[in-house]
């Protein structure tokens, strides 16, 4: 079990989060670059000190700023695999894998035996005497994992483990990595900027935004009720945070959102809600619409993107920020004579949106 409470500040950037992770599972931290993901890993590894915080792994306290406890990285049962793997270029594959055992002062016989077993397990036995630069990206990744895992860490940290690979090999290595991680009994924290990787590996997934966790949950929750623009944008949804300003008859709720007032027909408890609007439920018009479409935003066309597969439908991105997207047929876009800077009205029914706390 990992329990971490981390506070770290550098310049204007504040990192502030509390989280826990269980053995045998992979916690994925996903976020845009600059969200603080790598910093979290470096703090957990002990390569950086938090301004304040506490890290506890399997009952051992590695860091507790209140109690003045600090365990240096070399004394933590941690495995850390950095983005480029950082394999020692002057050592062979076997020497790389055996490095930690030697550094820990294990007897020579044990170093050789455990290294050999690890190489065998990772399918690297044939490459034992090679140098890292003689390996493919996927093989390098396996060496880096073997090098970290040979020490049987309680906590394995992976920093964008697939980012250094070229696209053609990434699919294969991703599947390999998935298989490998699911067989581990340590706590794994996996950092990525790619939401698809997060959805594939994460159990659970934690979304990091500007140094804060905005959502932690399993992938279904994340898909159904995203709480971050980052994930919503990936899923192609419009996500608006809303504050309840009034409740009408029945299940009618009026919300104030950054784009304007929204009416929802749904039973939801709470004052701060998220509203998801599917772009294909949004209609565009040049004149302000009247009638059953209850919600109307005014906007200015920023760009028009053809939708795969055939471009028969287009995504119209409306400004000003935060952007709001409507998906309409290309024919409709032509009929409306849409183009950049054109003022339009986006409307959607109260029944076509979902809100959650």
């Amino acid at each position: 079990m990992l329990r971490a409470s981390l506070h770290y500040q550098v310049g204007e950037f504040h990192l502030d989060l509390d989280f826990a992770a269980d053995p045998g599972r992979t916690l994925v931290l996903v976020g845009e670059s600059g969200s603080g993901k790598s910093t979290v890993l470096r703090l957990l590894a002990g390569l950086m000190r938090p301004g304040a915080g506490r890290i506890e792994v399997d009952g051992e306290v590695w860091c507790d700023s209140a109690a003045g406890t600090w365990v240096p990285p070399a004394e933590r049962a941690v495995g850390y695999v950095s983005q480029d793997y950082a394999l020692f270029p002057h050592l062979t594959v076997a020497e790389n894998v055996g490095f930690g055992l030697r550094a820990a002062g294990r007897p020579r016989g044990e170093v050789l035996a455990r290294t050999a077993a690890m190489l065998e397990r990772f399918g690297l036995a044939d490459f034992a005497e090679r140098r890292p630069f003689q390996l493919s990206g996927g093989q390098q990744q396996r060496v880096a994992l073997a090098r970290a895992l040979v020490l049987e860490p309680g906590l394995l940290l992976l920093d964008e483990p697939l980012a250094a690979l070229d696209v053609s090999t990434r699919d294969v290595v991703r599947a390999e990595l998935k298989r490998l991680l699911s067989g581990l009994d340590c706590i794994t924290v996996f950092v990525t900027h790619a939401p698809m990787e997060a959805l594939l590996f994460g159990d659970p997934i934690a979304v990091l935004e500007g140094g804060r966790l905005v959502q932690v949950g399993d992938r279904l929750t994340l898909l159904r009720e995203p709480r971050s623009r980052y994930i919503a944008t990936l899923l192609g949804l419009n996500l608006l945070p809303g504050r309840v300003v009034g409740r009408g008859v029945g299940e009618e709720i009026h919300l104030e959102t950054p784009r304007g007032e929204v009416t929802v027909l749904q039973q939801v408890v709470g004052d701060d809600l998220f509203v998801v609007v599917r772009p294909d439920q949004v209609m565009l018009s040049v004149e302000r619409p009247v009638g059953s479409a209850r919600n109307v935003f005014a906007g200015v066309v920023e760009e028009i993107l053809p939708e795969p597969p055939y471009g028969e439908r287009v995504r119209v991105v409306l400004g000003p920020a935060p952007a709001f997207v409507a998906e309409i047929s290309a024919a409709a876009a032509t009929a409306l004579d849409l183009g950049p800077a054109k003022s339009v009205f986006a409307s959607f029914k109260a029944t076509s949106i979902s809100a959650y706390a």
Partner: protein
Amino acid sequence: MTIPDRTPLGESLGRLTLLLLAAVLGLLVALPVIGLAFRVTPARVLAQLATPAVQEALWLSVKTSLAATVVAVLLGLPMAHLLATRDFRGKRALEVLMDLPMVIPPTVAGFALLMAFGRVGLLGGALSGFGITLPFTTAGVVLAQVFMAVPFLVGAARAGFQALDPRYLDAAATLRAGEMHTLWRVRLPLALPSIVAGIGMCWARALGEFGATITFAGNMAGTTRTVPLDVYLLLNENLDAAATLSLLLIVMATVLLAAMRQAGLGLFAPPRAPRLAPLPGR
């Protein structure tokens, strides 16, 4: 009249000027060496090499410069490691101190060494109490050479330690390696190209040391008269011998520098140790 460098003519004129200036410098360095080479014939070089006096100076030079290099490595690497890895009060002062021998005149350095280790120097009395005499001895020659040459070793090794990608150090730290294990297994091997190049420069500098040696250790045949001192002496007596020894020094220094550089560069080649991608922002 100035020709703007944006025009094609200005561009070519500019390039030509750069080339010319570089050529002038090339000649400035090459001509004296060529002049020396023309002064003697191979037969005369061989004849001079056979004389005991020349052999004596040569052997002394090789011996002392090698010893000085060994001492410089033993003392210089810890200093380079310290300067590359630690921040402390007075670090800037220490850095200046380490560079000082490169910029002060060698004769002044020799005089300063006398003031420290000479009979009347700061430590001279203490040293003679232990029966150790440095001035006007072969050990004194080595000391003068170390003093003058060690900055080259420290500078190169330090640059090598500093250029190390921090991600290798992070990897070592999370693989249970303490500072000493990291030094032996990661820092030293990865900085080896720079260190070897530094050893080359240090050795060549020690081999050519003149001013500090003659001031601190004197000019006694067989004990302190190294090749550079001998050259100076022979200028008045035997130009052939002086030219021979000079040429020899130049050849030795050149071979040393080139070989060490090549060795340094070649340590991870082929191919070179792959450079890691630039560090991400966070």
